[in-house]
């Protein structure tokens, strides 16, 4: 297998699914009509409701959905089971479910006066569905913040070439906000300056570093002796002297995915202990300050420009990697060949290449289960199907749709485009031989960029891979805290007015997140987040199903994916709860902190499970109600009228 084949498979599947399935549903079931007025035209206010050209809207929707999700999930899944299951789920998932979820959420909103999914579920299913949806959102945010903060702090602690680029990103974010909105400079000029400087800072991180070789001349690490990276090492060392170089605490990662595993000074292979040094806490604090600024400053001042810079970095990294993936089989076949096994075998597990042999149906060495079904389907959420797209597509894109017939190219098309991003991540992670998920992705990016820029670019390309990974994750995390604080204010503001203070609600969100970061295991956090995300996808498809049923249309294209995702995510929640229980909560020798964190996550799993049961029951009742109604509801407009 090589990189070109993935590109070909992706292109063929997307072409077939879009033209022979999605278009058919658009024409036969939803029956979009370009002559019917959309909410953007009916309620045009120049701000929320504003018709936009479909090509513009496609770019806008794509930018809104594509970043961390399709990259992190794929990396984690390939690291667990091998590249083939990830590839199959990506192409099958997006073809049968992903586009349907995004497109349908937009269309159901368009046909319901541009209302959000929450408001529609309140009316179509039951009032409590909206409340449960917000419960999901809160835990979803908490889990994703915990997973992302954990992996980012660990990366910054383990890789001295990474922090400088992130520091510069923060400064450039502030500068970009000032240049754009206060000095009112041209966007192109601002882009050239801030993106150029950030990119240079990321690439120059490893400048001067040399490869450390063992007696046999085999590379065993890096000598951080360059001007930037050695300064970071010295800084970390000085911070660690606070405790005399001793760890503050130690944790065990039963999933073997913590980025600190690659650093011998932070990981004891014999005992499996990962040491949390003061430098780790300091980098976590730095990230919290970063997120605090994004959460509390006006969005134009920091969060939006940082997001913008981050998107450019991702675009350039992934774009050049894609060119490298296409050219590699012709120019550098060795780079284009897959090093990761297609399907993880016991021998691969023994060699520490992947973790879940033979589909993960047998317990892993640490006692955890990672069976392909259901865990693959929650580990890879975005890229295949994602509930978050549906939630925000219904309030953002749906209100700017000029013609109904644009919904498929915009909603479905952007989802297919996001799928290609996930496929490229799969390519990057599959061509790199060893390392954890993020390290493998960065090494893959380094190799692909070396096809375009030459072999000497490998260390800089790898640094850019790490930088892009960090940026992708960080831009999402900063917004997560922003949304978390407003969710907390909405929830508890009535009972505790103090929560309406954005600084208080942000700090509470951060304390809860840090509790998970310090006690949790990021892969379990990620899988639990994936489950909550996919449950939202199931919910959005259930809303579409009930809506179609209320119109006496055939809801099969939404119903079957909804049922599959619903059952799968419920099962995945149970499996994750079991893994937390078996590998951490009752395992002898675990410290009090990880055990406490595991129980907290088990509690969250139970809450999500019960909330999902309520949603399932309410949806079933609504479905039955509409199935037995003979007449068409007066408030609804029939598709195709």
């Amino acid at each position: 297998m090589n990189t070109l084949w993935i590109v070909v498979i992706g292109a063929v599947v997307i072409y077939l699914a879009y033209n022979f399935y999605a278009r058919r549903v658009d024409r036969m079931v939803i029956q979009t009509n370009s002559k019917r007025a959309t909410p953007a035209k009916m309620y045009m206010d120049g701000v929320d409701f504003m018709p936009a050209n479909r090509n513009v809207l496609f770019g806008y929707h794509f930018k809104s959905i594509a970043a961390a999700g399709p990259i992190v999930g794929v990396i984690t899944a390939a690291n667990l089971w091998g590249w083939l299951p990830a590839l199959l789920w990506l192409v099958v998932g997006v073809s049968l479910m992903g586009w349907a979820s995004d497109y349908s959420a937009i269309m159901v909103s368009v046909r319901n006066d541009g209302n959000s999914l929450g408001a529609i579920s309140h009316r179509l299913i039951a009032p409590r569905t909206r409340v449960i949806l917000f419960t999901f959102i809160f835990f979803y945010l908490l889990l994703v913040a915990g997973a992302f903060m954990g992996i980012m702090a660990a990366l910054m602690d383990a890789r001295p070439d990474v922090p400088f680029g992130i520091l510069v990103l923060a400064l450039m974010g502030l500068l970009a906000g000032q240049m754009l909105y206060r000095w009112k400079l041209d966007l192109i000029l601002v882009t050239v300056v801030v993106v150029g400087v950030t990119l240079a800072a990321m690439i120059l991180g490893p400048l001067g570093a040399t490869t450390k070789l063992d007696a046999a001349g085999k590379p065993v690490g890096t000598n951080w002796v360059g001007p930037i990276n050695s300064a970071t090492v010295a800084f970390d060392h000085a911070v660690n002297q606070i405790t005399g170089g001793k760890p503050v605490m130690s944790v065990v990662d039963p999933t073997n995915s913590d980025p600190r595993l690659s650093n011998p000074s932070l990981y004891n292979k014999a005992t499996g202990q990962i040491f949390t040094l003061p430098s780790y806490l300091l980098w976590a604090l730095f990230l919290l300050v970063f997120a605090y600024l994004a959460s509390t400053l006006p969005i134009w001042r920091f969060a939006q420009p940082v997001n913008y810079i981050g998107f450019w970095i991702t675009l350039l990294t992934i774009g050049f990697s894609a060119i490298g993936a296409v050219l590699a089989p012709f120019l550098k076949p060795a780079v284009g060949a897959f090093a990761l096994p297609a399907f993880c075998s016991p021998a691969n597990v023994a060699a520490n290449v992947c973790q879940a042999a033979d589909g993960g149906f047998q317990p892993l060495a640490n006692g955890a289960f990672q069976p392909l079904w259901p865990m693959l389907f929650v580990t890879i959420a975005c890229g295949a199907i994602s509930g978050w797209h549906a939630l925000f597509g219904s309030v953002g894109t749906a209100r700017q749709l000029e013609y109904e017939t644009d919904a498929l190219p915009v909603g479905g098309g952007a989802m297919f485009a996001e799928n290609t991003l996930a496929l490229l991540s799969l390519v990057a992670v599959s061509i790199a031989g060893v390392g954890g998920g993020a390290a493998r992705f960065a090494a893959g990016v380094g190799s692909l960029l070396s096809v375009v820029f030459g072999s000497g670019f490998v260390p800089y390309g790898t640094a850019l891979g790490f930088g892009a990974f960090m940026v992708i994750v960080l831009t999402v995390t900063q917004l997560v805290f922003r949304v978390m604080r407003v969710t907390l204010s909405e929830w508890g503001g009535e009972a505790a007015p103090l929560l309406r203070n954005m600084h208080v609600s942000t700090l509470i969100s951060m304390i809860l997140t840090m509790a998970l970061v310090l006690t949790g295991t990021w892969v379990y956090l990620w899988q639990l987040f994936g489950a909550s995300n996919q449950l939202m996808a199931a919910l959005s498809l259930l809303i579409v199903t009930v809506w179609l049923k209320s119109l006496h249309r055939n809801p099969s294209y939404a119903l079957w994916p909804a049922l599959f995702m619903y059952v799968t995510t419920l099962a995945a929640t149970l499996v994750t709860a079991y893994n937390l229980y078996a590998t951490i909560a009752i395992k002898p020798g675990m410290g009090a902190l990880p055990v406490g964190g595991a129980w907290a996550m088990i509690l969250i799993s139970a809450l999500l499970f019960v909330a999902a049961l309520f949603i399932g029951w309410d949806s079933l009742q609504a479905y039955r109600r509409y199935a037995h109604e003979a007449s068409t509801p007066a408030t609804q407009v029939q598709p195709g009228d």
Partner: protein
Amino acid sequence: MQIQLKWPEKLRGIRQVARDFMYGMLGMEFANHAMEMRASLESLFMLATVGEMIGVPVLPPYYSLRLLPYLVPQIKTWKRRVLREREFTDEPDYHLEGL
């Protein structure tokens, strides 16, 4: 009847599509945000001048009536915007991108 496009026209079309896509991906959020900032200020101004239309009397009617001819074209849109039921997921400031 299908119109056959010549190559230069086709290329112009492709270039326009690419420009639109890039604008949507990279520039639209700034344009939208600028519009929102302006709309917030305008909403405030409308509230101060013709607030009694939505039950908030602020300015003496004499001044409101003098400003009325200038505000009439925007009243319908303004009322629709400020009176619409909203939840926080409606606000672009709280849209979580990239998941």
